[in-house]
């Protein structure tokens, strides 16, 4: 079966600020999302997850690699064809305060994609806008109000309404609940689940919050310094992580249940800087299990125990494979 969206060896390299070096924001990323699936992408700041989101929508041009939507390359499309294709792929950003135009009413914000794509008559667009407001749990009577009159959670509902206005197949959610309080976060996560079921959407859900990603995702890709280091089914990757970085990440999340004491792997050192990617395995300077090979040789992504993992430990015998944290 053809994937809904597929990335093949995607890379994005920028010149550094002083122009002397190359920032490898994303390197050799390959992934696929099936129809109706949610793929979670996790990683810390600088891991390239937001750059990857923008690449998948071709909001920025990849340095190399390809993006296929239902088997058709997005890279080959000219501007007009790309614009058409974008109806199928939409994005919701983290900051509902910064991503909505404060001078537009929420009705015009939500209707804008419909206007741009010339969908329906004016009256039909108006009706559709009111339906969308209702669908995301906002009062259609509020259509004439402005973004500042809404709370953070309500603004994120507006951003979501706008993203689904064109009935896309795929929505890329870039940290959609990170700016929200816990009690509001769960409202938005439930809304996203409802919309996915009703509109048969697929999601790429980008977040630094492992518990959120674990809750919503069928599959998870863990990124470190622009590369995928572990990728597989959510229950495999997050409940039984094999890559030392995934293990540290999972163990770093504070546990609510005070009875559930467990061993925390505290990584030494700073989060990595994509302007200075270490040689060999990019994780080796912080890896508690690094050995000589890791310092010299970049580990390829290989399939082990039903998931993909980029780690030399898998070759030095099963007994050396990282255990559960």
């Amino acid at each position: 079966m053809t994937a809904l969206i597929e990335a093949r060896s995607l890379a994005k390299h920028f010149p550094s600020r002083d122009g002397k070096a190359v920032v490898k924001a994303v390197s050799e990323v390959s992934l696929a999302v099936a129809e109706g699936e949610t793929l979670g992408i996790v990683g810390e700041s600088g891991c390239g997850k937001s750059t990857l989101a923008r690449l998948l929508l071709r909001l920025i041009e990849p340095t190399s690699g390809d993006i296929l939507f239902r088997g058709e390359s997005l890279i080959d499309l000219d501007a007009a064809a790309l614009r058409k294709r974008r109806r199928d792929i939409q994005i919701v950003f983290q900051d509902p305060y910064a991503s909505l135009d404060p001078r537009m009413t929420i009705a015009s914000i939500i209707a804008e994609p419909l206007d741009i794509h010339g969908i329906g008559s004016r009256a039909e667009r108006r009706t559709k806008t009111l339906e969308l407001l209702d669908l995301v749990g906002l009062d259609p009577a509020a259509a004439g109000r402005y973004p500042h009159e809404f709370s953070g959670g309500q603004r994120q509902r507006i951003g979501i309404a706008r993203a689904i206005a064109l009935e896309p197949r795929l929505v890329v959610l870039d940290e959609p609940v990170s700016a929200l309080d816990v009690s509001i976060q769960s409202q938005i996560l439930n809304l996203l689940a409802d919309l996915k079921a009703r509109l048969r959407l697929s999601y790429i859900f980008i977040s630094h919050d492992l518990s959120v990603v674990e809750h919503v995702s069928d599959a998870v890709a863990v990124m470190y310094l622009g590369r995928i280091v572990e990728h597989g089914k959510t229950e495999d990757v997050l409940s039984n992580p094999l890559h030392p970085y995934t293990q540290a990440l999972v163990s770093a999340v504070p546990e609510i249940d005070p009875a559930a004491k467990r061993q925390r792997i505290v990584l030494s050192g700073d989060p990595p800087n994509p302007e200075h990617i270490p040689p060999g395995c990019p994780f080796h300077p912080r890896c508690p299990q690094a050995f000589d090979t890791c310092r010299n040789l970049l580990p390829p992504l290989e399939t082990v125990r039903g998931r993909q993992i980029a780690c030399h430990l898998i070759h030095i015998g099963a007994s050396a494979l990282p255990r559960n944290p």
Partner: protein
Amino acid sequence: MSAEALLSVEGLTVGFNTEEGPVRVVEDVSFSVVAGETLGLVGESGCGKSVTAQTIMRLLPSPPARIDGGRIRFEGEDLVVLPEPRMRKVRGDRIGMVFQEPMTSLNPTQRIGRQIAEVLALHRGMNYTQAKESVIDALRKVGIGNAERRLDQYPHELSGGLRQRVMIAMAIVCRPKLLIADEPTTALDVTIQAQIMELLKALQRELGLAILLITHDLGMVAEMCRSLAVMYAGRIVETGPAATVFARPRHPYTAGLLSSSPRQARRGERLPSIPGLVPPPGKRSTGCSFADRCGRVTDRCRRELPPLASFGAGAAACWNPVP
């Protein structure tokens, strides 16, 4: 309040003068921090937790902020009425403070060694040469390697995690008994957050530090705090030993916060959520502020403000507590 309380806040009420008149943001808040222990002050944005912390340090400009009532007892003094020159001696010396954003709380134009030394200049009258050894010692205590070399760096040359360590070094360089940490890891990545949590625990053991931890993260409270106080719409709605409150929350808001976290739910399941929004200051009812969002609401809740009542080891302000 118990005798061993290092800090005890009693009936603290704080208001702001706004264009629409005075607005109460913190009302009748009481809690105490025991020497050498950590109290978590938990709540969502706008609940008044940061205003409470800043009031303890008397950092809010007045006007518009105004302490309308209550006492803040710290080592035998009431910080509410302490004259400003004496308050200046408390701030940074006997009470240290760490904020969420290390980049905005550090001076970008000054080398970090000088910035930390400034605290010693202010409180101990030391010049840079005299202070240098204590500064290096403080940097080592917060786990900054190569301390001598770091002295001459500027904040922008450091990562977010290192900047937060520098902030903590500044806060402990005078050996305070109390550290107020306001969302100390919120701006940091999860692996760095884990480092800072371990550091705060180690400093507590080593220096006998009491910590008032202000956070929205219940997981962090569970890991760091012996006791907690949950704030909602300017008031404390539940308080008690962390283990008791997490095992058996009595206030419906605490219960809702705990169950709406995706950590507690099974994958793909609907998350229990708290409907509606926090009422803004000035628009709070005479009854319980949580009434409009509460699944256990009764008529009395809308009319009468529930007082904090004891339940076993803890207390909750609720007319119809979770059984």
